């Protein structure tokens, strides 16, 4: 995170590859380099006492991976899993390590090459999601694909803080009151 849109845009070389997927009827794209794999929607273990956009955790071949409901993260109604629902496993930088996270999407479309010239700056409003989540708008066959700044969308610090809101308590254990 911490990338400004200009930086992010400048980083886009002549063509960049994006994995596109649909969510609540809209097309989104994430840089292919953060994508680790795509798996079928399976049994997600709920975690109690967390906000609704955290679906829970899954067992990814022995690793416990949190899954985020992207629609809920954008403030829409939570995704209702269907036959085509997928979990995209992404690797997000967090401090010095990488954090593996899954995001729930309605369906995965394709990997697209989008030339930098075909990427428009994000609109100030109107996309119905937070402007700082968007890197740009990619033009593909006359349609727009919302290209996500996925490190910001899945900012571990921000999500962790949101997750703790329901829990916050002024007379928390000694340790917490030390801050």
């Amino acid at each position, binding site marked *: 995170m911490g990338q400004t849109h200009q930086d992010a845009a400048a980083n886009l070389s002549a063509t960049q590859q994006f994995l596109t997927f649909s969510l609540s009827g809209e097309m989104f794209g994430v840089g292919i380099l953060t994508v680790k794999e795509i798996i079928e929607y399976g*049994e997600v*273990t*709920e*975690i*109690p*006492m*967390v906000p609704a956009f*955290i679906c*829970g*955790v*899954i*067992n990814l*071949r*022995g*690793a*416990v991976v*949190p899954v985020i409901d992207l629609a809920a993260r954008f403030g829409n109604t939570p995704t209702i899993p269907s036959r085509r629902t997928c979990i995209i496993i992404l690797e997000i930088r*967090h*401090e010095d390590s990488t*954090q593996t*996270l899954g995001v729930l999407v309605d369906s995965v479309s394709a990997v697209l090459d989008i030339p930098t010239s075909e990427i428009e700056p994000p609109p100030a409003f109107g996309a119905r999601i937070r402007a700082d989540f968007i890197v740009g708008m990619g033009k593909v066959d006359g349609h727009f694909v919302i290209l996500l700044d996925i490190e910001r969308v899945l900012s*571990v610090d921000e*999500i*962790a*803080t949101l*997750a*703790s809101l329901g*829990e916050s*308590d*002024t*007379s928390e*254990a*000694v*340790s917490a*009151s*030390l801050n």
Partner: protein
Amino acid sequence: MDELTGVFVQESREQLAEMEAGLLALEANPEETSDINAIFRAAHTIKGGAGVVECSYLESFTHKVENLLDQLRDGRLSPSEMRINLLLDCADHIGLLLDALEQGETTLSTSVIDADTRLRERLEQESAPSVASASPASPPPEAVAPVGENAPDIWYISVRFGEDVLRHGMDPIAFLRFLTTLGDIRELQTLADTMPPAEQMDPEACYLGFEICLETSAGKPEIEAVFDFVRDECELHILPPHSRSEDYIALINALPDDERPLLGEMLLRAGALTESELLIGLNSQELAKAYTDNSPPIGAILVEHKSVRPEVVEAAIQRQSAIQQAQQQTAPAPRVIEHEEVSAQIEPVASPPAVVADGEHHPAPAKARAASSEARMLRVQAEKLDRLIDLVGELVIAGASATELARQSGATQLVEATSLLSRLVEDIRDSALQLRMVQIGETFNRFNRVVRDVSHELGKDIGLVIRGGETELDKSLIEKVGDPLMHLVRNAMDHGIESQEKRQAAGKPARGRIELNAYHDSSSVVIEVSDDGGGLPYDKILAKAVAQGLVPANQSLTDEEIAALIFRPGFSTADRVSNLSGRGVGLDVVARNIQALRGTVEIKSKPGQGSRFVIRLPLTLAIIDGFLTAVGKNYFIVPLDTVVECIELPTHCDREYLNLRGEVLPFLRLRDEFELEGEPSTRQSVVVVQYAGHKVGLVVDRLHGEFQTVIKPLGPLFRHLRGIGGSTILGSGEVGLILDVPLLARRASRREARSFEPAPRAHKH
């Protein structure tokens, strides 16, 4: 820094730690000579290594240290407190020199050089009657040396250095020079007969050999130790003086009647042979046996190798057969006949035949000994271990599903095979996880030195008690917990323990006590630092906090809240600033470090009786014995050691407490607590758990029993989550959540307390 130096620095640090531990043990028990030997070995290893990596300042300094140690070892000097202090300072200095080497500094900073010179002077003073430089005219005092080792003798040493010696960074001249510390070289002949013609000569190869006559009072093992670092690469023969042969023979004849005398063992015990000489001899015996069918007797080989003089071997053989004959008379063992068969083939050394074949049976123990000392430790990159553990985790899950499928198929043989497989997989998992776990004892033991030094500095008499050193926790945690512990121990010594006068006035023993303790408690590791000092002065802390503006003056705080104040940044009660603490840095750093590990610190203090800092750390990676329960389709694991019993929830139970044999047992309905969907089952169970003296019931739908739980941390995303300590993967591949019972209960009690408060309380921050 090249790889060799890196390894050297790392290994020297370990040797240094050993040296320090040895010195502290020696201080506590000055009679124990084995400690001196350990210290000497450590210093010697560092010195040798320093020579290899060509770090001259380190080598020459350690050499000085070794001189003093040598005199202590021989009993020429006694390990007085001053000498031990000096040696501890030297150990610290070696640490500094290692730092300098690690940072690739070619020149030392002036402060280090000053310290170096000072220490060298002190070392010179301490070891004033220096033996290393003593001329033959003034022989060292020998009264204390063991009998039979005192008169200087001429030893004959033949050494042929291997070709690669120079390439490995070893200089033959250094060994000769070191040899002169043992005694005088009377005669030295350089052998260059292996030197090829100039055009074929490799300037980097060593073609030299030496024949040396050494006059020394040292024994064979010490002479051999000189060549320790090239032992594998050179051909070394040490032939003892004639006068020694008589001693050896006398010793051999004095050996007790063993059940089964082995020639090599006898020579070894008499000191005529060193262990490595024996190993080499046994190896060539094996080789000979492999190529030709008859193997020469070990005695003959040793004579041929010039390891022992023939007359000594003969004496040993005679003694051996005498013992055997004696045994034969009492019990005619069939074994002896077998010996005669073998030995009939060979006879280079005139001796009774029954003996020699025994050497063949010897390699096993000797080799095993050598191998076990080498294989004690193995360095492995942590990432490799993590990868292994991940793979094993996958294996467990794959194995579980195979077992499930086998069970469904109903093929008995398949079921048996898979159950065997899954048992093995579990064993592998346990061993793999064990690899990353390290005992905390090593970290604790470092504090022996800290407590010793700091108590001297403060002029207080303080002893350290260590308990629970065998408690295991993840290696990464151990590394990070050292600093906070250091702060707490120093703080306890400076502020906690009172002066001796005060203690005596209060009727306490004059010697203060610091205790380090570690144990597993439910899903966490608890490390305690406690002292038997004056406890926290609550009124003083509060007054200070008010004066420093940390709390408003009219605020009334509970003892617990006051105790928490000392973790606030900038807080200090000390009236004066000491070298150790009192500058207001320390405890807030402790709190921050512990928090960074997702742990907590608590203080328990009783005025006049001392205080205890309780650090509670999560097990980031560990196995615990869990108790598996389920609510709806969610699985929850309760750490087994907190579970007291399970009872059935009475059907009519409106209140959130039970009557447990006359005790009030409050309980939590996990379904409500976690807002889980679904209807409660008709027969719910209560798991009674105990933590820190409290009992609480957890209401669940189903009980599944004991379950070995591999803890998988939930990661930074859930770091604020209280009440759930981690997750695990069940045999079915599903994820189960591990409950943190104390936090869960605290959450519930706080929520209830809030709901009864008439009006929101003013925030105290």
